[in-house]
């Protein structure tokens, strides 16, 4: 694994709503190395998509985004609008969660693919078209000529998801952010797509930030895992460490809760309670009221993300380990 291509430090994203300020992402830092796949996991609503959107700079006007985000040496927050725009879709691409609604319903697939190429690459329309055809083939959809002329509603969810991928890959980005690219899909199609992403990573040295809540998927593709809970990173480490040596009670809970074929239990493990609302949180460990190891300190002080020492890069934010470290 090479140098970090994406370095996120102290990212905070706040939404001002009528009810109050929503800290969707609260001071998180992580990095993605060249050719590496980092998985961002966590319960629904914990801020995964917002993290991705913040990196893409798509929250302007809606949220306050602070912190530093460095992409291949460029500090994203200091770029002008125009520079950021030129970067987006070109070196930094994203696949969105919902393929059905993420494509413009009144434009053909072709138009939507070609326009991104024309925008970023100095090529003619004809060349762009050729390139689009090639991309469609690459993501494993046949009949590429026909697909190019179709409208989004004429495609199935799986096809659309792959078209989204094709669009994201059109300009051969250095960094791909994929937000739950397979949630809507059948396992057999999911397998196809994961395979494709893996190939790309290998052939182009592309780095990837993959967001998912499916631990099975994580196990399959991730090199490194970042676990989020209520806007904060609570644990991060290599995929091995997370699966075989989880530290945070939440991570442990997640892994335990997952039913696994061939390991039937009478009663599945569950994490009691639910994610707290992200509005006006007091300083505390946000997991405290669901945690079986909750201590007094957990209720009035937020733990910081510390290196647990075991292995390079495995960090956890939990008072249990804070003590150990001390």
């Amino acid at each position, binding site marked *: 694994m090479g140098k970090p291509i994406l370095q996120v430090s102290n990212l905070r994203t706040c939404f001002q709503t009528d009810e109050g300020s929503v800290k969707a992402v609260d001071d998180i830092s992580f990095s993605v190395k060249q050719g590496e796949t980092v998985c961002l996991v966590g319960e*629904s609503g914990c801020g995964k998509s917002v993290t991705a959107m913040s990196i893409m700079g798509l929250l302007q006007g809606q949220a306050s985004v602070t912190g530093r985000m460095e992409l291949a040496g460029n500090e994203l927050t200091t770029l002008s609008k125009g520079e950021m725009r030129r970067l987006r879709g070109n070196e930094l691409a994203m696949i969105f969660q919902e393929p059905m609604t993420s494509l413009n319903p009144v434009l053909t697939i072709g138009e939507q693919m070609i326009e991104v190429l024309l925008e970023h690459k100095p090529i003619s329309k004809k060349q762009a078209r050729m390139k689009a055809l090639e991309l469609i083939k690459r993501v494993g959809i046949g009949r590429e000529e026909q697909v190019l002329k179709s409208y989004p509603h004429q495609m199935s969810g799986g096809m659309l998801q792959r078209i989204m991928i094709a669009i994201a890959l059109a300009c051969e980005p250095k960094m791909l952010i994929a937000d739950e690219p397979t949630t809507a899909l059948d396992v057999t199609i999911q397998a196809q797509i994961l395979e494709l992403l893996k190939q790309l990573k290998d052939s182009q040295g592309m780095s990837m930030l993959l967001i998912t809540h499916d631990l*099975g998927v994580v196990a399959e593709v*991730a090199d490194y895992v970042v676990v989020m809970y209520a806007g904060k990173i609570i644990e991060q480490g290599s995929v091995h460490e997370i699966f075989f040596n989880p530290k945070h009670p939440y991570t442990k809970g997640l892994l335990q809760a997952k039913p696994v*074929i061939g390991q039937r239990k009478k009663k599945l493990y569950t994490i009691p309670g639910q994610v707290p609302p992200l509005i006006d949180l007091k300083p505390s460990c946000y997991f405290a009221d669901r945690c079986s190891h909750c201590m007094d300190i957990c209720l009035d002080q937020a733990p910081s993300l510390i290196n647990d020492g075991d292995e390079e890069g495995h960090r956890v934010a939990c008072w249990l380990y804070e003590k150990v470290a001390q």
Partner: protein
Amino acid sequence: MTNKPVVMEVNHLKKYYETKASFFNRQSELVKAVDDVSFVIHEGETFGLVGESGSGKSTIGKSILNLQPLSAGEVVYRGKNLHRLSKAEMRKVRPRIQFVFQDPFSSLNPRLRIGDALAEPLLDHGLATKKTVRQKVLETMELCGLPSYHVNKFPHEFSGGQRQRIGIARAVIMEPDFIVADEPVSALDVSIQAQIINLFNELQEKKKLAFLFISHDLSVVEHLCARIGVLYLGTMMELADRDRLYENPLHPYTKALLSALPVPDPTHKKERILLKGDIPNPASPPTGCKFHTRCPLAKDRCQKEVPAFREAEQGHFVACHFV
């Protein structure tokens, strides 16, 4: 296998949707959402229905409970053909057979408090009086893991998992003996998923309910169901006991499904059957065996001949030429 009485019998169920292909093309397309499916469910049994998105699972569930008309076939609930009942008779049967919707949020009226949503059917059917209903609602909520202080909240104030439990509570409160649970967990993340699976297990034990459990997640189904049917493009491909199906899947599609299931274990590098191609358009399904376009074993014969749905082993049915 079981000698428990049959609760629900589904015979040659067909449901075709008519859709217009394009605006100017008035020749409507026929989407064969469910194409000749039969199975029975016994008292106290959980029957699992798996199959990828769009394979017709919800359609089967809704058709069974007479929430939409059938194209052909019959559904017999304890000797009554549900689709032949009059409106009044049907209303009498309703409380006995309940449905848990796939999407809990959209199946709850956003402007009705949960307490009212649960109390309403009881009052409407005269199953409780205004005095007793409160007690009953609170009990049921407790049973489904919803603390009583939620009773005055609106649906949007709940988390997805809680909402799913509200949906279940609404079905359970009528004290039915048969519930169709339509993908009650697939939209949720693991920890909530686990809560609901546990709840179902408990209910079944306590109340001897029969379930039709719909899901596309094989690992969940394995935890819950005694018998499982595998659906592909509206047709039953395989039907067997849980253990048989998981240990000895016969149909290539079932095999692919099981192998494609990601396993939460980074060291586990297993052989995976990668299927080619896409799910065909249900409006123009492939001829012959519907799976042949993606089947690794497909031969010419599969294109032409529809394989019979036959009993390959005792209690293990499959529709494939090569088994």
